[in-house]
């Protein structure tokens, strides 16, 4: 017993303390991503950009885009949807590890493209973007409610709100995993 304790103590003393300025990220191969100084977004692995990634064909209706307040209105609604979701205890955890700066932009582009408001979608396709996130239908419902809140706040007529949801609803096939 005494010998064991002594040995343990000796072992501890024999250990070399790491140098003060050890770069642990480098030591363990952790890559530090720097936000882009202009856009504020984190870099992502390259992928093929295409409007087909938006997951649906766009509407061709000037009136519909106007109902959403045009490109600027749409961008605000997308950003607001993410803000509400980050503050929503039901789904906040999903967004915690996400670059929401980039998400706000790409979601805005997707809405803008689908509503025929003249944007190109530069994000990834829905299946890749949601891979291994384990999104449930309940999560999707929560996001829909937050989007509805954002659209209501922006004064979008309910029928127009539903037309955007009509484009998004079939994407549940690629988003909902369990």
């Amino acid at each position, binding site marked *: 017993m005494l*010998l*064991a304790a002594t*040995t343990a103590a000796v*072992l501890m003393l024999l250990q070399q303390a790491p140098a003060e300025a050890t770069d642990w990220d480098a030591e363990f191969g952790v890559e530090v991503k720097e936000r882009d100084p202009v856009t504020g977004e984190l870099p992502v692995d390259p992928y093929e950009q295409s409007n087909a990634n938006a997951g649906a064909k766009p509407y061709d209706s000037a009136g519909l885009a106007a109902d959403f307040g045009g490109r600027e209105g749409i961008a605000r609604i997308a950003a607001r949807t993410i803000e509400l979701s980050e503050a929503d205890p039901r789904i906040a955890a999903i967004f915690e590890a996400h670059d929401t700066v980039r998400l706000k932009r790409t979601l805005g582009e997707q809405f803008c493209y689908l509503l025929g408001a003249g944007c190109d979608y530069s994000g990834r396709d829905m299946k890749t973007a949601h891979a291994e996130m384990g999104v449930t*239908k309940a999560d999707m*419902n929560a996001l829909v409610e937050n989007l509805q809140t954002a659209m209501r706040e922006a004064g979008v007529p309910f029928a127009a709100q539903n037309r955007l949801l*009509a484009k998004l*609803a*079939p994407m549940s096939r690629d988003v909902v995993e369990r």
Partner: protein
Amino acid sequence: MFTTFSSLAVLAAAANAPTPQIAYAPVLLEEPAAEAVSPAADEPLYPAIAPLDPAQATALGEDGANIPHVDVLEGGKLLLTNGVTTIEGSSGGGLARWATIGGRQMAGGIGLSAHVTGIELPDFGWRSYGVMAGFGDRLELSFARADFDTRDVGAALGIGQGYTFNVETFGAKVRLAGDLVYGDTWLPQIAVGIEHKRSRDGALVRAIGAKDSSGTDFTVSATKLFLARSLLVNATLRYTEANELGLLGFGSATHGYKLQFEGSLGYQLSRRAVIGAELRTKPDNLGLGDDNWMDVFAAYALTDNLTLTAAYVDLGSIATFSDQRGGFLSAQVAF
């Protein structure tokens, strides 16, 4: 104790190589212990406690029943997507059964719902109330009791002033495929079900000409919310022999099961409000002029859990008393 001692000792020996002190010598003889402390490089290291595989984590161990996590009364459905409650206690419109599953639960959850409905007609009064349980997005079980007050007609028919017919409905519905809101636009939510009904007026309904005092309806329903048009469309086929929903028994000497149709159209005004119309065909087994039923309705989700439905119903002729048009009011609480 000795193992601990030897392990540490061996470590110390390794650290102090090359000359082990005499005190450590007996320990060095224990080769297996030494190997356990420093595994070979190609041997994988296992964590002390294996992480639980969710698929295998069961209440009774690996070979026992797999009891998944269940959210009871947690909710999560979009407003109104559990439908309101039909006069037979199923999730649906006021008159027509839908493919929707009652309760506000999501997959893996259990929901409960209860309703009361009243219909005021020129010659009759209808009261029904019931409870419903929903299991995930899969199964709905329901029970409802309807009381049909004949008021003055009772006296005129010689069955007694204010004679009240009673029928109890035990319902079950299983969703087979599709989703009311999500997924492919062309694929509606599809459900099959039964409604087993028991008239509490066996002797009387047989005297009127019914073959049985109990019977079972079989239903197939398809329901979809077409978001692009804010339009809910429902079609149900019901294979039934019920006379006036079973209030007047089932079948007759000459008529049995027939296929009937229930259709609903609803327009979503907001998250909380929907207006629409319904049609329900009914057989006329007793030759009393059983008419098709129609309604125009408005439903409003007052809160996430309380939905009120008001309708103007045209129930045609009931027990030879025609033009039975009136008001329908229903309240549903759902969790």
